[in-house]
């Protein structure tokens, strides 16, 4: 080790002195890894085969807390980053492109495979298991004894879209979300644009405010996305009577309230009633619900991850941390954010419309 390094007494928990190269020692990786480990362990203890064990829930939060501590150390080291050390590619063919930008693109490649695998699962089950509506219309579910009395459920695929696309109101949260994400992709680009304006062309205070506001709006839009998603999954909402528009007062049930659940092995939809006997078709839809919740949920987790990142970035923007020298970090986040947006553009038709 050269004396050069020793003079600087690099701290392993932040803020880093970025003026002489790559990050120094950091506690963050170790602590964050342990946080993830504790989290996964305790989550598995809190639920076992679908049985809830409340005693472990605080420990789940311990896991999350430890991960957060690691993340904060990481951020603390990054706060001082002012673009001094933005490593550039040395070799052809990427010469003079920022290295971290290449890394983000590589990362998105694996993200692509993650969603590909989820979609493969979906397609396997969607095409491999008979649709519940088809089964009902064929009408032989009665004769085969799939009735309430026998308590036996018929395995079939009930797409979430059957419920969601059933009314304009039901699909509203998803549709609004689509726009929220698209607009947020726009605001993040605006933040980048303002951060990138060359020194001297604008007042630095104006830059600080603009970047902060655009990142803040992106943050808010992402929050709206998750809130609406929770509304659609668990909460449901109320539609008031508006006579002029011909809207009648009614309740939009959440998917949860509709019984569209991962463990719904005795699901019955209000449409599937035999007019003559009044018997209801019982369906085991747990596979279709699993694919729906896990795929849209994985996307939701990506949005949540984005929110965590945006929280830090908005804070850094508020301190005036983004200047043309290091505006590119907004661009890197933007690449990820556009990807999350694009995935939604696929998830939405596949799960909400089809």
């Amino acid at each position: 080790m050269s004396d050069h390094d020793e003079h600087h007494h690099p701290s392993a928990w932040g803020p880093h002195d970025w003026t002489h190269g790559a990050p120094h020692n950091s506690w963050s990786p170790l602590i964050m890894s342990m946080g993830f480990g504790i989290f996964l362990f305790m989550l598995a203890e809190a639920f076992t085969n679908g049985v809830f064990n409340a005693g472990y829930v605080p420990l789940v939060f311990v896991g999350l807390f430890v991960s957060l501590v690691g993340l904060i150390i990481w951020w603390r080291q990054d706060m001082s980053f002012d673009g001094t050390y933005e490593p550039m590619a040395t070799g052809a063919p990427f010469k003079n492109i920022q290295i971290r930008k290449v890394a983000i693109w590589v990362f998105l490649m694996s993200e692509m495979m993650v969603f590909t695998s989820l979609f493969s699962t979906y397609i396997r089950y969607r095409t491999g298991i008979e649709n519940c509506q088809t089964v009902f219309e064929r009408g032989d579910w009665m004769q085969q004894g799939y009735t309430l009395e026998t308590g036996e459920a018929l395995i079939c695929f009930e797409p979430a879209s059957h419920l969601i696309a059933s009314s304009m109101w039901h699909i509203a949260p998803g549709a609004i979300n689509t726009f929220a994400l698209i607009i947020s992709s726009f605001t993040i680009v605006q933040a980048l644009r303002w951060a990138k304006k060359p020194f001297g062309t604008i007042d630095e205070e104006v830059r600080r405010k603009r970047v902060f506001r655009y990142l803040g709006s992106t943050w808010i839009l992402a929050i709206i996305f998750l809130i609406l998603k929770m509304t659609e999954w668990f909460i449901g909402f109320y539609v008031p009577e508006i006579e002029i528009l011909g809207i009648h007062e009614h309740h939009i049930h959440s998917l949860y309230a509709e019984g569209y659940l991962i463990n719904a092995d005795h699901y019955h939809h209000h449409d599937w009633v035999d007019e003559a006997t009044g018997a209801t078709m019982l369906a085991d839809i747990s596979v279709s619900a699993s694919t729906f919740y896990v795929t849209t949920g994985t996307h939701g987790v990506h949005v949540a991850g984005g929110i965590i990142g945006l929280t830090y970035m908005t804070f850094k923007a508020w301190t005036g941390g983004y200047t043309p020298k290091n505006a590119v970090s907004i661009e890197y986040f933007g690449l990820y954010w556009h990807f999350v947006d694009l995935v939604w553009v696929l998830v939405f038709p596949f799960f909400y419309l089809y």
Partner: protein
Amino acid sequence: MNREKIISRTLVIFTVLLLGMVAVPSATSLPTGVAGVKDSGCNCHGAVVSDSVIPTLEGLPETYNYSEIYTLNIAFTGGPADPANINQGGFNLWVSDGTITPSDASVQSWNPNEVSHTDAGNDQTSWTVEWTAPANDRNVQFILHTNSVNGNAGSAEGGTIGDEWNRLSIQISSPVVILEQANPYTVLTTLIVVSFVLLLTVLTFIFYQNNPESFDWEHFAPWVAGWLTTTDHKRVGTLYFLAGFFFLGIGGIMAILIRIQLMVPGNDFLTQDQYNQFFTLHGTTMIFLAAMPLINGAANWMVPLQIGAPDLALPRLNAMSFWLQPVGAVLIFTGVFSGTGADTGWTGYAPYIVSETAHVGTTMWVAGQILLVASSTLTGINFLTTIAVMRAPGMGWMQMPLFTWSILVANLMLFLSIPAFGVGLIQVYLDRVIGTAFYDAASGGDPLLWSHLFWYFGHPEVYVVIVPAFGIISEVIATSARRSVFGYRSMVYAMAGIGVVSFIVYGHHMFTSGMDPTLRFVTMLTTMLVAVPTGIKIFNWLMTMNGGSLVYRTHTLWALGFLVTFTLGGISGMFFPSMAMDLHFHESYFVVAHFHYVLVGGTVFGLFCGVYYWFPKMSGKMLNEKLGVLHFLTAFVTYNGIFWPMHRLGVWGMARRHHTYFISVDEVRGVDGEIITEAVLGALPPEAAGWNMFITVNAILFFFSNFILIANVVISLVRGEKAPADPWGGWSFEWLTDSPPPTPSFGRFENGEWHDLPTLADANEHVAHEPSRLGIWFSKLMVADKEEVEN
């Protein structure tokens, strides 16, 4: 005390605490932990043992007669029990061998070796049961727990307040005196703990050796903290090597226990249940916790050095990749020590993996694997980026050293395939945790989907572990033969070809799953296609030696050994794509022989070769050649002694993943103890017993032969000869810097820019000192464009 010291001190303590926290899941599963009723006792009332309760167990002989039935009287005195109470007491009796049966309604049976009182039996202080002694020689242990109850069951306190309990343990011996049989869990735990303590001791010793004067906490804490927080690619590489070798040892210990079980037909050292966990953990450990970290160790160390980069592209992320591994490892091992570890095989096939019958440790195994997937993804990002963008000016794709190429190809394969495994794991995790139905066949889930996701990753994965070995061998053979590698370009295309083809062959793992015959045929052809690029590589290596003059060093020997064993593994591999053969060989020891020839004879030998080759560069100390040759000879011979006979056993039909086997002259007893003398279905020819014994002996010898390497490394670290910058006459960038290399590895960073990074021209300069064909080759191939160098 200055601030730095306080901080590093607190943080080391903090880390120890956190590590402890992560390790608790494993610790609570120690034999004295949650091992079940036998150890934790019955659902004991009251918090503490009470001496006033005196349990008794009467009717036991000192030595039992085979299969005789004994009537046992269980009783206790003392404690709050009183005939006036609603309830008086309860018990739980566990026996290590034979079966216990209740003799009246006051006792119920949990399983053949465990009984307890019933509700009706709650109002008594004595009970009777019957014990059938085992039909063979055993030292039998009885463990009795009794509760003395004060009868406040109906009260608000919930009934157990004020109750007292005690425990009684009795051992009786068999008619013929036998040695006590070891408990495999105790053996495993002890060995792991001993290895870990040894590792820590050696590390502390090395710290002491560095500077005997400053051997105190004041210096120790910052030193440890420095390692725990490092982001330097060389130090992280060393950490990977440490972790990798440690787990290679642990996996080896499990392999030895497996082999002890298989030493003789019908052995009962491990039960079927224990055996399942041992081979699951053996496979998982070896692939994910030994082979992959060792490869990452070599890659971390060498890739930046070979391409002339100061460090990896994202150093902190690199540290993250590493630290996810030990945490994942702790989760993977959860439950193993108490008999509740994962028992699914390293492939974790559905639907068993999501069933409740699979051990609870399976969930943690899945969780640990998820962390390893995250780790591999981060590693992939780092290496792909580094290799793509941080090559020294002038070094084009086709001038990259072959080891770097191999890491590029391996990471590309891993990176594109592991997300499928990750998603599969998350699905399984959710199935096991919150109760989704992805692999629940009763709800229409398709277990084969898991096989698809797994093998879509799994097949590229086996190439991920072998391709870096190819890279190492290419470097070593070229250096040792004193010439450039023959057919550099075809080497690169062969590796890339393997990378592409490996994505379209995974169906060969599912031939027997009822696959469409047309697809089987297609997969058969694509699988056979893999042999083409692999063959090209082998012939190129041979041709490299043909044109050169071989210098025999330890690493040369390992490379030659690799050529033999890997080729044999490749040949046995060619039997499987052929459908008719695969149907016979599937799940037999022929498969075990094959994948060990490629994994041990390929990956592990390749890595050993790399260790001998690069150790002087990494540590600045030379290894002892004599010990090296001794290691090679012993390991090579015993290794072949283990796995060569397995081919024959496999052809005879010895089944893989089975805890025992029979030979055709074995007496086999039926349910009622009558002797069935005819050959059991699937019994092996009598010679199989001898071969299995032979294999086990060799396995133990192989295990110990590797201590020669460890001894060699430790001796050299403590008092090895100093290594020059280029001890073997290698010519890639890593041989340009000092041994060990400085930090940053190349250049220096000033005013927001890197200065003095090497260019390919520097490497050529270095080679120019080499009189031979090499110089000519370089002048033809590796001289960079003038402008590029100037930039």
